[in-house]
């Protein structure tokens, strides 16, 4: 397996979506290729750093929320039951 193929398969590797054969091949490549090992580690860290942002609570701006609640109150009677 070439380094480029490893990079292309990283998502599937991290999402545990490789076939057993592909998994074996990519693991063998990581063992033999220091550069790809480094890339895997920093790629993994990248995903971790992106996911760190999950801690940031994205709050709806208060005036927008108030207008939304008012809007829904006005249109509440329009509710249609489709079952």
């Amino acid at each position, binding site marked *: 397996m070439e380094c480029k193929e490893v990079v292309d398969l990283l998502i599937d590797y991290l999402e545990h979506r490789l076939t057993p054969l592909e998994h074996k091949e990519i693991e063998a490549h990581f063992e033999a290729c220091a550069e790809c090992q480094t890339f895997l580690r*920093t790629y993994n860290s*990248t995903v971790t750093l992106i996911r760190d942002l999950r801690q940031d609570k994205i709050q*709806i701006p208060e005036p927008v929320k108030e207008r939304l609640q008012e809007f829904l109150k006005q249109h509440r009677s329009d509710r249609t039951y489709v079952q």
Partner: protein
Amino acid sequence: MKSQSVNKNSIDFGTALDRERILVQRIKDGDERALDELIQHYGGKIYYLALQYTKNPQDAEEVLQDVFLKVFRRIDTFRAVARLSPWLYKIAVNTSLMKLREQKKHHVASTISLEDWMPAGSTEPGDNSPEPQSKDWSANAEDALVRREIRQTVRRAIGKLPKPYRTVVQLRDLDGFSLEEISDILQISVPAVKSRLHRARLIIHKTISRFMSQQERKRSLAH
């Protein structure tokens, strides 16, 4: 060990699903506080998603209102076996796309750039080639101080991504949807989701690598 973690995840997922089912039932029963809870939980995320598409706070607000009105009107059609959030996001993406089409028809210029919302960084759109690099900065990324410092850089890098990439990163890495759910929300194939996600992460990876190199240079100059 592996099967234990899968079991744990499914228990957590089940609990979240149960909470959603209860919330949906309360909305169906006309409990006003339940709708407020839904707004409190998803309002910011939907508003931000709409802002990503429309790049205009007024249009984003209209999308937000349309989305929650559609949710309110269609809640009785929502199947109890499904997860609420992918359904909600699908409505949000479709409503945002409709607003975009409306914008194009009326040639509405964007009044806000995403960087105003997520301040600009150094990543160029389309800069997605995997950069061969030998520096292993992954250990530095474990450092709590570095992680705090780099948050803004990561946020900016996401904000500068081309929209198709940004949306997929948002849905997978920030909102935690599965690749299949994203495929359904965006109406694109799973391979397309994976490709966009991978390209987006490579761009952000490159930005972080640059940041880490700069930090290392600063440290070596200081000594």
